[in-house]
C-alpha cells in the first residue's frame, strides 16, 4: 500500500514540477522586487508591515491559485486522457489513487510555500536589514497557510471526482471566497432571523473557515498567536480535509469511468 501511495504522490509532484509550476516563484520574487520602491517611500515602521502583509498574502494567494488550477484536473484529467485505465488495471485501490493525488499536490504546495518563505525572509533581510526573535511568529502564519492548502486541495480534489475542470474551478474559487469571509457569515447569522439565520449558520459551518486560519494581520502587528489556536486550527483543518477527501473517495469508488 505504502509503495503504491508514495508512487502516485511522487508522480503527481513530478508532474507539477515538470509542468513548470515552480516558475510562479520567479513571479513571486519579481512581485516583491517590484513592490520595493513602494516600501522605501513608506515610513520605517510601516515598511515592514507592508512587506509582511504583501509577502504572506502572496504565499497564500499563489498557493491557492496553484491548488485550484492543478487540483481541478487531478482526477478529471486522468479520466479524460485515460491514464487512469492503466492504473486501475493494477493492484491499486481507488482510495489509494485519491490519497496519492492529495498528498502529491499538497507536497507540491508545501515545497512551493517553503521556497517562497525562504524568499520572503530574504526580502526581510534585504529591505528591513535584519530579523528579530518576534519574526519567528511569521512561521505560524505560514503554517496556517499550509493548513489552508490542506483544505483547498481536498476541496478541489472532491470537485475533480465528479465535475468538469471549469465547474470545479468555479466551485473551488467560490468556496475559497466564502470561506475567507466565514466570520462575516457567522456575524450575519447572529443578526438574522428565522430560516435565513439557520441557512447562514449552516453555510458558515459547512464552508471551510479560512478566516480563522488567517493570522496575517496579527503577525503584521507582532501580536502573539496562542497555542490553543494552533491546536484548534490544526485539528479543524485535519478533520475538514479528511472528511472532504473521504467524500471524494466515496464518489470515486462508485464512479463508472467512461
Amino acid at each position, binding site marked *: 500500500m505504502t*509503495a*503504491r501511495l*508514495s*508512487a*502516485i504522490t511522487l*508522480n503527481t509532484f*513530478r*508532474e507539477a514540477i*515538470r*509542468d513548470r509550476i515552480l516558475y510562479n516563484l520567479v513571479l513571486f520574487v519579481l512581485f516583491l522586487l517590484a513592490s520595493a520602491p513602494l516600501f522605501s517611500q513608506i515610513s520605517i515602521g510601516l515598511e515592514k508591515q507592508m512587506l509582511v502583509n504583501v509577502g504572506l498574502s502572496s504565499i497564500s494567494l499563489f498557493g491557492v491559485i496553484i491548488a485550484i488550477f492543478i487540483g481541478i484536473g487531478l482526477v478529471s484529467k486522468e479520466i479524460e*486522457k*485515460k*491514464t*487512469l*485505465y*492503466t*492504473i*486501475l*488495471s*493494477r*493492484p*491499486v*485501490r481507488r482510495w489509494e489513487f485519491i490519497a496519492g493525488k492529495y498528498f502529491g499536490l499538497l507536497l507540491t504546495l508545501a515545497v512551493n510555500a517553503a521556497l517562497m518563505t525562504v524568499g520572503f525572509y530574504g526580502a526581510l533581510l534585504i529591505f528591513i536589514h535584519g530579523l528579530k526573535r518576534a519574526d519567528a511568529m511569521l512561521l505560524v502564519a505560514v503554517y496556517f497557510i499550509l493548513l489552508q492548502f490542506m483544505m483547498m486541495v481536498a476541496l478541489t480534489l472532491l470537485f475533480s471526482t465528479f465535475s468538469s475542470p471549469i465547474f470545479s474551478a468555479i466551485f473551488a474559487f467560490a468556496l475559497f471566497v466564502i470561506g475567507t469571509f466565514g466570520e462575516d457569515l457567522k456575524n450575519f447569522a447572529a443578526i438574522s432571523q428565522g430560516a435565513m439565520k439557520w441557512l447562514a449558520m449552516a453555510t458558515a459551518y459547512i464552508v471551510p473557515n479560512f478566516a480563522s486560519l488567517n493570522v496575517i494581520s496579527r503577525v503584521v502587528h507582532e501580536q502573539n498567536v496562542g497555542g490553543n489556536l494552533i491546536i484548534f486550527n490544526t485539528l479543524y483543518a485535519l478533520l475538514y480535509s479528511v472528511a472532504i477527501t473521504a467524500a471524494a473517495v466515496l464518489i470515486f469508488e*462508485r464512479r*463508472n*469511468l*467512461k
Partner: protein
Amino acid sequence: MHAIEIEDLSKDYAVGFWKKRLRPALKPLNLNVEAGETFGFLGPNGAGKTTTLKLLMGIIFPTSGSAKILGKDCLDPEVKQKIGFLPEQPYFYDYLSAPELLDYYGRLSGMSATERKERIVKLLDRVGLSDVGSKHLRKFSKGMLQRVGIAQAIIHDPQVVFLDEPMSGLDPVGRYEVRELIQALKDEGKTIFFSTHILSDAEALCDRVAVIHKGELRGVGVVNDFRSSIAEQTEVIWLSAGALAAVTNLLTDTHVTGDTVRGTVKSADLDRLLEKLRQQGARLISVTPIHRTLEDYFMSKTREETKETVSL
C-alpha cells in the same frame, strides 16, 4: 480452470436528459478463454469490445453478471497483480521518459527496486526502445508509444495480457512490430485477450475468436477451422469460352475475359464440371478450392440480426 470466465456480464448506460432511459452497451455475455490461448475479440466500432475490457479491468462496473480471471473475481487486487492491460490509443504521462514510466508502473505493481531496474532494461530492449534514453514521451511517435504501452502492460510479467485494439492507428511498420511483440508473448505461453476490428491481425495471431456486434456475442470460432475446413466451393479457370454453354448449369459464378473463363462451382459438382470440360476439349489452367475465411465468418455473424445459440 479457465484463464478468463465471463458469466452473464452486462452493462447498461442511463442516457437522456433525465437519465431514465437505459441503453445496453453489453448484453449478457458468456465467454471462457483457456490458459495459454490467444483470443481475439472481434467486432465493428461500437460493438461493445472496449466496454467488455473496461468491465474486466474494473474501470466501469457491471449492471449484472460477473467475471473471473485465473479463478478469482476480476476486481481482486491479487488478480490484478497477474494481469496486464493496454488501453485503446493509450496516452501516457508525456512528461516522463520511457524508463520513468515503466518504473512508475512497476512500483504500482509491487515490484522491488532491483526487479524494476533489471526488467526495465530488458523490456526496453525487447520493444526496441533501448536507445531512447531520457527522451520524454511527448516526443515519441505513435508506434513508439504503442510499444511503450505494451512494455507497461508486461512490466510485471503478468500471466494474462489484455490488449484493446493494439494495432489501431499504426502504420504498416508499426503494426508489424506490435504483431511481432504479441507473437512473442504468445510463444512465451501467456494468455492473450485482444480486441480488434482488423481481421488479418486476428487471423495471424489468434487461436480462437469471438464476434461481438451491437453489444451481443454473435459467435465463437477456432481460427484453424477456417483454414483447414473442407472447401464448399472451387474456382476453376480454363481456356475455351466455347465450352461455357455446356457447363453453365453447374456454375454458381462466371467471369469471361477473352477466351479465358473463370467459374465457381460447388465442390460436389467439381468432377462433373471437369469431365464436361474435357469432353469439350477445353484446356484447364487451374483448380483452386475456396476456403471460408475469418472475414466470411465475421461478416456472416455481424449481418445476423437475431441471436443464435452459441456453443463455447
